[in-house]
């Protein structure tokens, strides 16, 4: 009897603990982004609005599965992802809802919005070439890189979502057959078996292992500002430059991927969720993304940081030419892209094995 009583008391106290969390103004965010700069922006949002931002970071597929399992009592209000393919996936899995917001309509250009207003792009990153500064990269495109620098190209593994999205975008731009040929050509011109992360690709170029690396513009910004002299990343950008491919007149433009956010279906704090996404699209906040996290703003009235601008100036680009695709297709073509990369032995190029 005593034990039963003890059990009941214990159960009640746990229950009470869970129940006594008072209701306050808050917004719950499931995000794949894990940057200090994001945390600083959330703090600024809280300061301005009094709305607390609660964060869980994880990989996108895990977050999407969680939201699906939570059903009509979702634990999060906002889904924030660093890849457009995952935003499309979230939409297809039915976890997002349509948002009508004049502010978002104005701040986010329609090409970075979902057609049904279920997600909104907030920052952009380019998939660029990092090159050995001893060579002249002028006129470099995704298509001609293998002929300009045969056997001198490196990239990280095929499980990297940005590589997958690059290939997916080429499937859209060039068609599946041409994209397959492109991947095969690239793989047979790889200077080493894909290894390391984005920043390591730059290090490999600096060490003379290759002339060209495929990498993310955001990581180049981190390399430029690396202040840790004990790091292998330090000083790499002295000898490694950044080049935005496909900028010529009849060329297709550089591959841009976005980070974006949407409001989760049945969100308990829908209004706060919209407020947060609107806040993140605001001009000054967009400029902050660009200055502290080396990303391109989507809001056209926001200026990109001087560092990012200097990259364009160095290449004599006045207006960055981007692929003209609807970013939802990155999700649609993802499986095709992964299959093309698998068939081409991206992670184990045949000319390099054994």
């Amino acid at each position, binding site marked *: 009897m005593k034990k039963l009583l003890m059990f009941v008391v214990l159960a009640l106290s746990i229950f009470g603990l*869970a129940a006594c*969390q008072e209701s306050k103004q808050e917004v719950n965010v499931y995000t794949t982004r894990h940057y200090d700069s994001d945390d600083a922006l959330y703090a600024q949002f809280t300061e301005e609005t009094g709305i607390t931002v609660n964060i869980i970071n994880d990989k996108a597929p895990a977050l999407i599965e969680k939201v699906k399992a939570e059903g009509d009592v979702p634990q999060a209000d906002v889904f924030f992802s660093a890849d457009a393919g995952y935003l499309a*996936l979230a939409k297809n899995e039915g976890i997002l809802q349509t948002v009508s917001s004049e502010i978002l309509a104005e701040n986010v250009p329609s090409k970075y919005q979902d057609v049904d207003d279920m997600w909104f792009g907030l920052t952009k990153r380019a998939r660029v070439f990092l090159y050995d500064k001893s060579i002249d990269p002028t006129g470099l495109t995704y298509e001609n890189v293998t002929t300009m620098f045969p056997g001198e190209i490196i990239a990280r593994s095929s499980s990297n979502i940005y590589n997958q999205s690059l290939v997916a975008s080429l499937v859209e731009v060039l068609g599946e057959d041409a994209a397959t040929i492109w991947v095969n050509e690239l793989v047979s011109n790889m200077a080493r078996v894909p290894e*390391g992360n984005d920043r390591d690709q730059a290090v490999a170029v600096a060490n003379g292992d290759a002339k060209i690396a495929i990498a993310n513009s955001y990581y180049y910004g981190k390399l430029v500002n690396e202040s840790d002299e004990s790091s292998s990343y330090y000083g790499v950008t002295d000898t490694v430059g950044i080049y935005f491919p496909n900028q010529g007149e009849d060329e297709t433009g550089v591959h841009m991927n976005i980070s974006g956010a949407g409001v989760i279906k049945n969100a308990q704090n829908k209004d706060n969720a919209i407020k947060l996404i609107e806040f993140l699209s605001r001009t000054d906040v967009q400029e902050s993304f660009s200055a502290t996290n080396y990303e391109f703003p989507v809001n056209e009235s926001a200026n990109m940081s001087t560092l990012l601008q200097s990259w364009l100036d160095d290449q004599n680009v006045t207006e960055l030419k981007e692929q003209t695709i609807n970013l939802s297709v990155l999700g649609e073509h993802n499986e095709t892209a992964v299959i093309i990369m698998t068939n081409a032995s991206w992670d184990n190029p045949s000319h390099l094995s054994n």
Partner: protein
Amino acid sequence: MLTNLLRKTNDRLVFIIMGLLVPLFVLLPLVQIVIKAFGDPSRYYLILLESQALFDGVISTFELVIKVGLFTSTIGFLFAYIMTFYQVRWQKVLNILIILPLAIPVYVAAYTYTNIYYYLPFLETVFKTPFFMNGSVFIYTLFLYPYVYLASKSYLKKNLTDYIEASHTLGRSKWSLFFKIILPLSRPVIIGSMLFALFETLSDFAVVEYYGVLTLSRYVNLAWFSQGDLVTASKFALYILVMMFFLIFIERLSRTKKRYASAEVIHRPIVKEIPNIYEKIIIYGFIFSIIILGAVLPIVQMLLSVIMNYHYIPRLDILLITFNTLKITSISIVLIITIALLLTTITIYLKGVKRHLLSTISVIGYAIPSMVLALGLYLVFIKIDIFLYRLFSPIGLNSMLFTSSILILIIGFFIKFFSIAYSNLISAYNRMDHALLETSEILGENKLSTLIRVNIPILKRSIIAVAIILFIDMLKELTIVYSLRPFNFKTLSTEVYRYAGNEMINVAAFPSLIIIILCALLIIYLEEGNKK
């Protein structure tokens, strides 16, 4: 009072409940995987089957497992042998330094080594070679051998005195003593502990991806993170599990063939030999080279990184995240050891198939890749939570009981790490004199009070060893904490993961170092404090 209460408790009921509940619990996420794995194969999976990829993946996984298994057991066991049978200088410090590499998560080690190679390129020439599978074998070996060391050391210390004395009397040489007696007798312990190193190797994908080695675990990762192809991921996770079962099966074989029980409970202490000059050169050369590679270099590199990135330190909220880390680990350790003691007690009373089934099921948890385990668990508990929420929200429940608190985290830890406690305690039990237990029962104690009054004091050293391994493993566990934590909950390992994932390994060095320091303190406290 407690023992009185225990004497009256119907221990059979407690044991039956535990014996059913724990395996059921551990099986939960596995069931999820199996169900998913039998889903319709995706186009991607079919392509993988057609291509060479699957075959190559299996081959390189085998190569990895064989090499890592061989090297971890050689290094771990030799260290245990040296530290047990020879008088070595600075014994206490060396003991800690030998264990410490285990406190560094393998992928943090891999990233950190990129910086070390940058300073010491000759190491890269030696270890980043095809033989070491582009450096991956080197990393797994160097940072996982302490599993074998810890288990072998506590085994050697206790169990071999009689055999060794007999062998001395018979005038056997040192070599023949080692190869004919010590090594064969220790084989089950070596293989058992090596399994943990292999499980960790098999379920890790970060290091192999970093070094560009195509193993099966990379396909789990690839399928899962491109478009969330859970079916393909589950199929590959299942293949890995099959390999792990194969390994468990081998271990069982090695264990059942021969069993040497020691008659006494209290052993005479081993008389340590003073090494001659040649032995000294070999012993110190061997110990120092491994310690320098596994502990000194990475720790110095991390210290350097902390100094160079000192401006990040205030951002890290280090006190809070350390407190969070200690909170979840200490609760989990107490829970796991308590239940493992109960369940091992049940196991030793069981015979035949039931015994094998119980002990196999209970070690599954460690074999399931964390990523899959975490998600499987979440999917189960969110259902329970929604049910409770619907039931109790009219009377004021306004959040999820398990999934929005640290409860689910502790359950995740339990499922993942229960096997470590269980298998270590089982092997400790097997070495114990069972006549003692019978005596206790004849004297009127029931099994539960025997457990507390007889078994626990005898098993004290093993329990301490288990606590050390659990603590280290939990401190560095990343995926489970990352995927199951409630909102805004940060621990040392989530911060390591966050910065490492953002390609800022030098900032991740600070929380990594705290993890190492905590581990070192615990080892000192438990290993040294306990002797007095």
